[in-house]
């Protein structure tokens, strides 16, 4: 009778362990997905912060130039600048583009600026 009890307890523990192993596999995947998504959100925030800094610097700079900056996570920020002469001044077309490691464009921030001509028309 005692042996029968021990056997049934052993079977129960074995089944419990099997069930735990299966559950842990699924739950672990959920945690891994959450971690991956959380990392991605953090990277996006960092990219946005860096791109905004770069766009504001480009807007305020007197003579900005084409620049490429690679962030720690491999995202590449590219600044493109071109100038267009207008009737009364210069329109400086500029934009900051962020491209991730897979080649996907995350965002493009235009930071163009119009610089009026210095002459005063009488």
């Amino acid at each position: 009778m005692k042996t029968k009890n021990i056997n049934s307890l052993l079977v129960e523990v074995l089944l419990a362990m099997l069930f735990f192993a299966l559950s842990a596999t699924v739950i672990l995947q959920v945690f891994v997905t959450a971690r991956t998504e959380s990392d991605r959100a953090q990277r996006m925030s960092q990219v946005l912060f860096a791109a905004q800094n770069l766009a504001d610097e480009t807007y305020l700079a007197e003579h900005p130039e084409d620049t490429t900056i690679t962030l720690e996570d491999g995202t590449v920020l590219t600044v493109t600048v071109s100038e267009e002469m207008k009737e009364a001044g210069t329109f400086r077309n500029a934009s900051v583009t962020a491209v991730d490691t897979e080649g996907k464009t995350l965002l493009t921030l235009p930071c163009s600026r119009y610089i009026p001509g210095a002459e005063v028309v009488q």
Partner: protein
Amino acid sequence: MNHRRFNIGPGAASLILIIVVLSMSVLGVLTLMNARSDISLSERSLAVAEETYELNQRAEQAFAALDAIAVAAAKDSADQTAYLAAIEKALPEGMALKEDIVAWTEHGKSGRSLACAVRIAALGEGPRLTWAAHQMTVNSEALGMEELWN
């Protein structure tokens, strides 16, 4: 001595296991929901930043167009009144002149808009135009914020 024996009956291991698995599942789902909302917030931040910079770009383009109008108006005007009248006549749709300030609004796709105003200097003085207002406004109805709060 009176010894009290503690026996683990059949089903106790299963009960503990169910409690542990349920707890882990709840924690996992909460973590995943938190991560998803982080992603959603980040994507929204990117969209808002792009829209804001796009509106600024359009405001600069309008500023450039207005400067060209001011230069052209100055060439044909003898005094300040004629100068302002010539500018008012040449203003594109959406821009309005009040005293010496030209105001207009750039509208974004998702209910955000940029209210712009430029002060026109007196004829012959420089700089011809200076920014008087550059204010971002949010239409909460268009963004669905009313529903969000309710």
